[in-house]
């Protein structure tokens, strides 16, 4: 695919992700859609390094964010002060006229102010005349918004107009690591993972009985204690492996081979850690129900699992320049998948299902979901005991004002459906 076509595809893809904001109502989903759109635009406008830095962790974590931030900050200034050569315009008649007018104005302004102040001080009727003339209301926030969006547009448009080649030579002085250092570092990390996995496998395959025989440890506590840490540990492995890949001496075949073996082993061990995290998530959900954080943590684990497979297929065989687009495509796929799954509706469905089985229902949490959850609530509410139905309706009534959009500008499809659903739910 040509560079121009790729850029257009990425920009069109980014726009489609902004369109998702007009579909679902969940603020978390909206943030993810916006983030994905920005990521795709970033990929479209970023001029990839053409040397050893290409596809390295330094490029992902340092050069790319700094470059894109710089573009966004300086795009408009570069457009006005750098790209437009004002001297070329100076001999055009409109510019000459403009220059004459501006010169006249500049000459007049100090004297206009001086005499204006004197005359308005001298005569109250005259002062009132000027006051009436300038008595209009203007909200300064308009100027701030215009400047903000113009700045943002400048930052986005300029790199799309002119793709610049950038010279990046950060890696010239970086000391590379060979097979021994790589073996020691990743070997020790693998040993730590093996020790943890040895314990986890007992829980994973030992079933509930093993947890229950451990004193003072309930299933829910067991799950609660480690889920977040395990998800974080899993998420740290990918950048760590990218760092080791970058540090490895590419000319040293033994070092590369060591990295490949150690990384495959580590990813294998990580899959057990992730399985343990997933297991705890299920236990946690059984004990306390589903929450937004748990849904998004699960989605992050799905993305990580797929991205690690992509890492094995691209970075380890030495084709790391292909990694970024695949990883970004996986982010886009997971975010799109989340929009299809509709997390708030899923949370409402799971938690109401638990309530139907006699478990506790957190009414506050259920009714604080976005409009995405309302059709599910409407469908399942009649099956709940009367007192719970009453509590949910009461809470929805109390919070019903949020669903009314102020005008067409913040419209979304989900809220339109939700508004009708809410009216039916609250009908006496």
């Amino acid at each position, binding site marked *: 695919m040509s560079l121009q076509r790729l850029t257009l595809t990425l*920009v*069109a893809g*980014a*726009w489609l992700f*902004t*369109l998702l*904001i*007009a579909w679902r109502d969940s603020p978390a989903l*909206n943030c993810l859609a*916006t983030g994905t*759109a920005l990521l795709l635009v970033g990929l479209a406008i970023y001029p990839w390094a053409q040397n050893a830095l290409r596809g390295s962790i330094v490029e992902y974590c340092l050069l790319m964010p700094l470059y894109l931030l710089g573009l966004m900050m300086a795009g*408009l200034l570069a*457009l*006005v002060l750098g*790209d*437009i*050569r004002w001297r*070329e*315009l100076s*001999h*055009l*008649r409109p510019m000459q006229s403009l220059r004459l007018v501006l010169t006249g104005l500049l000459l007049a302004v100090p004297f206009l102010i001086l005499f204006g102040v004197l005359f308005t001080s001298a005569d109250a009727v005259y002062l009132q005349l000027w006051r009436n003339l300038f008595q209009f209301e203007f909200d300064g*926030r*308009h100027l701030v*918004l*215009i*400047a*903000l*969006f*113009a*700045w*943002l*547009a*400048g930052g*986005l*448009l*300029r790199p799309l*107009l*002119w793709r610049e080649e950038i010279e990046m030579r950060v890696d010239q002085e970086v000391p590379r690591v060979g097979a021994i250092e790589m073996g020691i570092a990743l070997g020790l990390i693998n040993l730590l993972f093996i020790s943890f996995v040895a314990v986890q496998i007992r829980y994973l395959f030992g079933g509930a009985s093993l947890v229950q025989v451990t004193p003072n440890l309930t299933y829910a506590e067991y799950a609660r204690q480690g889920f977040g840490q395990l998800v974080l540990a899993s998420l740290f492995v990918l950048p760590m492996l990218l760092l080791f890949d970058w540090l490895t001496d590419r000319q040293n075949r033994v070092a590369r081979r060591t990295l490949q073996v150690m990384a495959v082993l580590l990813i294998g061990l990580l899959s057990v850690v992730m399985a343990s995290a997933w297991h705890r998530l299920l236990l946690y959900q059984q004990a306390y129900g589903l929450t937004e954080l748990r849904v998004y943590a699960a989605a992050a684990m799905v993305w990580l699992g797929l991205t690690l497979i992509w890492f094995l297929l691209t970075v380890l065989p030495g084709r790391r320049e292909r990694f970024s687009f695949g990883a970004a495509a996986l982010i886009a796929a997971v975010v799109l998948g989340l929009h299809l799954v509709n997390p708030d509706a899923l949370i409402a469905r799971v938690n109401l299902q638990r309530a139907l089985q006699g478990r506790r229902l957190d009414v506050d949490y259920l009714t604080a979901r976005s409009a995405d959850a309302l059709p599910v609530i409407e469908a399942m509410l009649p099956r709940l005991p009367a007192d719970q139905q009453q509590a949910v309706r009461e809470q929805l009534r109390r919070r019903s004002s949020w669903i009314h*959009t*102020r*005008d*067409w*500008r*913040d*419209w*979304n499809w989900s*809220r339109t459906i939700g508004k009708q659903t809410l009216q039916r739910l609250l009908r006496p």
Partner: protein
Amino acid sequence: MADAQSLEQAVASVEGRTRAGLAAVGCVLLLGLLGDGLFFEAGVGLNLPLWSAGVVLS
């Protein structure tokens, strides 16, 4: 007639980059105004894809 010709020559002498830059500045100003119109005292919804469409079309 002579004036029109000299104006054409003058416009032609303006380099492509400057011309594209001027057009971009015009678009940027319009996008700033559009952003204010779409987002002033409003939440996020249809306005974001509309503004983004403006950027893409520019």
